[in-house]
């Protein structure tokens, strides 16, 4: 996060949950002459005289169907006919408030504000139509994009109203807050299956992603990157051979970057490869997977001063009271985003303005970062938003946009910068590798009386508004603060920076925290001699919605029914992203283990979810399917190893992701609810690694405590058990 967007601002807007967008509902006085202009009651929508309602989607569309869902929320209270709804993805503008897409926050942060935006516009349209018809507004109702006067049956369409009647009244935020919104039982658009608006053009090649931008006079840039992920720096650059490459245009070398510009992508690659750059690899040149985990283990053992993330009851007396204790260490490897569209942008620098064509998850941060680095006002940075060919957190980062701008500033022609897959993977901001040491104590009643976790990870937080006053990064720790009723708990948060850049990868910390928490929970259940589902339920008294989804997943997943040899079922239940906006999620995973090779096949996943109100039921299912399978991919296959300060893997041949041949059956159950909506982009993901490791244990009796659950690790655990 840029200095311009402090963590406080960020958290403030997070805390606003429900009114996340700054609503600007002041309508300038409109005179009769300009009444035929479009009606923009607020930043969320525009109604034009042709009757179309355009909902401005300030969240990035990266596959979650956010445009359709947010438009449904507006259309519901606006009483618009769905066929009149259009969406667009506007350029960054301060009027849109925080432009950030992530954290499964989109619906959660905007449901209330977009509902009120629609409702306020409806009120003003009713007033305007009543005035025009010379009737009392109180006798009018709105439905299907028309205002109807009930006593006479006369009506005006929204487009007609906008064309004929000047709307001068303004609604303050106070006015908006007072509007009585519909009850869920009155919804006719929210909760309805509506086909996603972005899908047709994603089947015929017309959908435009950032990489599909071609501007007149455009040239191509390639950047020369240091051999280490962090801290490398060029000491000399010889571009004499590059200059002889056909199509070479120029070399850009300054403190921040070494790049070559040419007429085509291919020629830019050749010219970049012809550069002779001497690098100072920096202080991380000897960093390796082994050195990182050795440092993690040392810190977990020796660090007694890092802050607590959870402190409840008295851990010492809790452990002393325990009749049995158990300790286990869990590790997780680096995970890359591997979004399908390689990172890219086109940047044109003209008349002091940077026009940037790309797909961004975090325009506010990009604008802040570029403004500071390039020394221009924020208003001179214009991000033309495109579809994102996958985000998963990768497109929160402004790194490639900044590179493009640094080059375009010197080239004075539109510059297209595309990372190759290799560059993309080696210059990613990975999900941190972690080490967690858990210790639990069982009381005489068979329940957990003491819970201790020492969590070592690298934190991305400093780039995102800084750490909290105790040096913690909540987004690196979420999930370790589980909701089980355990009287004595202590979670220590230990930061360990490694020279391998970390960022936010789909579902973020809860991937690794719940892997440890929910696997360890299973271990304690077995130690207590209690069924893992019953064991969990005995400690979920204060979170009945989580207990419900756990029961639902267990029932639908066939919990307790017989299975063939070498097949096991495992369970996990989570609050998903954040305790304060939980999506209650539970999965039962059924897996088959080949005891001679350690190979694991996931046969079936049953996932039960309670996310409150569901805006688009099919979109919700698609998100759960996708997030569950992303979890299967993470849990089975994905890891980055580190040598010489950089990732070893380079492309899909050595960084494997899930393909169709390993896809299990996925059964989804979404709880009917009228609670305020949370989010769905990530929750499924966080259940899979623990449920799968528990399934492997059920199938083999072997406990695997490292993700991914590779055949070699499973086999080793099986052999150790024997």
């Amino acid at each position: 996060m840029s200095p311009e967007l402090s963590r406080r601002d960020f958290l403030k807007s997070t805390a606003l949950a429900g009114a996340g967008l700054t609503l600007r509902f002041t309508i300038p006085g409109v005179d009769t002459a300009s009444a035929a202009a479009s009606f923009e009651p607020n930043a969320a929508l525009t109604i034009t005289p042709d009757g179309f309602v355009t909902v401005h989607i300030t969240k990035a569309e990266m596959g979650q169907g956010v445009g359709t869902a947010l438009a449904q929320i507006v259309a519901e209270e606006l009483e618009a006919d769905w066929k009149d709804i259009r969406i667009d993805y506007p350029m960054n503008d301060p009027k849109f408030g925080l432009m950030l897409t992530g954290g499964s926050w989109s619906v959660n942060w905007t449901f209330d504000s977009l509902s009120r935006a629609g409702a306020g516009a409806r009120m003003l349209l009713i007033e305007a139509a009543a005035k025009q018809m010379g009737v009392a507004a109180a006798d009018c109702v709105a439905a299907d994009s028309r205002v109807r006067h009930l006593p006479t049956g006369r009506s005006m369409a929204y487009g007609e109203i906008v064309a004929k009647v000047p709307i001068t009244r303004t609604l303050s935020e106070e006015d908006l807050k007072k509007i009585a919104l519909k009850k869920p039982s009155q919804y006719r658009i929210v909760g309805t299956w509506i086909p996603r608006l972005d899908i047709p053009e994603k089947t015929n090649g017309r959908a435009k992603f950032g990489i599909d931008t071609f501007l007149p006079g455009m040239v191509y840039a390639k950047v020369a990157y240091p051999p280490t992920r962090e801290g490398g720096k060029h000491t000399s650059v010889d571009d004499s051979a590059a200059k002889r490459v056909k199509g070479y245009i120029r070399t850009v070398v300054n403190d921040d970057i070494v790049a070559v510009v040419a007429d085509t992508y291919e020629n830019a690659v050749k010219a970049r490869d012809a550069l002779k750059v001497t690098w100072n690899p920096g202080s991380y040149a000897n960093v390796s997977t082994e050195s990182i985990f050795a440092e993690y283990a040392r810190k977990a053992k020796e660090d007694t001063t890092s802050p607590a993330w959870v402190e409840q009851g008295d851990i010492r007396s809790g452990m002393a009271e325990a009749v049995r204790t158990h300790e286990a260490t869990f590790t997780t490897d680096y995970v890359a985003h591997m979004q399908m569209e390689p990172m890219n942008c086109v940047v044109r620098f003209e008349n002091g303005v940077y026009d940037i064509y790309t797909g961004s998850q975090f325009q506010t941060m990009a604008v802040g970062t570029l403004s500071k680095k390039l020394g221009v006002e924020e208003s001179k940075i214009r991000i033309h938003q495109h579809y994102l060919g996958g985000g998963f957190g990768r497109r929160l980062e402004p790194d490639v946009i900044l590179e493009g701008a640094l080059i375009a500033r010197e080239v004075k022609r539109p510059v297209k910068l595309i990372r190759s897959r290799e560059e993309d993977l080696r210059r990613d901001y990975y999900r941190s590798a972690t080490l967690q040491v858990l210790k639990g104590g069982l009381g005489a009643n068979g329940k957990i009386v003491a819970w201790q976790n020492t969590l070592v990870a690298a934190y991305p937080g400093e780039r995102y508004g800084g750490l909290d006053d105790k040096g913690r990064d909540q987004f690196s720790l979420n999930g370790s603060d589980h909701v089980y009723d355990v009287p004595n708990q202590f979670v220590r948060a230990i930061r360990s920076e490694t020279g391998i850049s970390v960022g936010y990868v789909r579902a973020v910390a809860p991937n690794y925290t719940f892997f440890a928490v929910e696997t360890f929970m299973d271990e304690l259940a077995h130690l207590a001699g209690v069924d893992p589902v019953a064991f969990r339920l005995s400690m979920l008294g204060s979170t009945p919605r989580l207990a419900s989804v756990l029961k639902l997943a267990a029932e639908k997943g066939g919990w307790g029914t017989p299975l063939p040899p070498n097949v096991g079922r495992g369970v996990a239940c989570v609050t998903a992203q954040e305790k304060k906006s939980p999506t209650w999620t539970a999965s039962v995973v059924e897996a088959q283990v080949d005891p001679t090779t350690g190979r694991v096949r996931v046969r079936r996943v049953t996932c039960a979810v309670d996310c409150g109100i569901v805006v688009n039921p099919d979109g919700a299912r698609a998100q759960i399917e996708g997030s569950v399978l992303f979890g299967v991919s993470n849990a089975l296959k994905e890891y980055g190893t580190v040598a010489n300060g950089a990732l070893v893997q380079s492309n899909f041949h050595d960084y494997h992701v899930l393909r169709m041949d390993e896809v299990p059956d996925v059964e989804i159950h979404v709880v009917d609810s009228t609670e305020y909506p949370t989010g769905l982009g990530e929750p499924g993901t966080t259940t899979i690694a623990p449920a799968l490791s528990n399934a492997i244990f059920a199938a083999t009796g072997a406990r695997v405590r490292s993700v991914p659950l590779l055949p070699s690790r499973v086999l080793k655990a099986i052999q150790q058990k024997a």
Partner: protein
Amino acid sequence: METVALEINGVQREVQVEPRTLLVELIRDHLGLTGTKVGCDTSQCGACTIHLDGAAVRSCQTSLAQAAGKKITTIEGLHPKGEHPLQKAWIVEQVPQCGYCQSGQIMQAAALLAKNPNPTDEEIVAAMTGNICRCATYLRIKRAIKRAVREVSS
């Protein structure tokens, strides 16, 4: 540079390019048909899948010279109105999420159905496993292919 004649999406075109130019670059950068995507440059992800004489190939690993004399079809030319049975099934099943890989997925599936109009589940998986979808829409891709098969045969 030389002038190369080719047939793409049923239209005869002449382009000024190096014969070594990769098909994907020709298609996207020279002809502006951006429905074909790049994902890995090494034929491992399938985002760049097109048809050469009806067979699915990776355009990121095929040079223009290799395509000489063959009919090139991209997603834009699969059906004049974008209403190939697979495209219609893709919409009914609401397959795409981010959508980036989907042109390649559809082209891969179309080549399969052209050769094998009634594939088994195993044949579908075998044909589609080379195409990565990071959003993991695989279950819907499978359903859409089966739907298209049903629609065509009924």
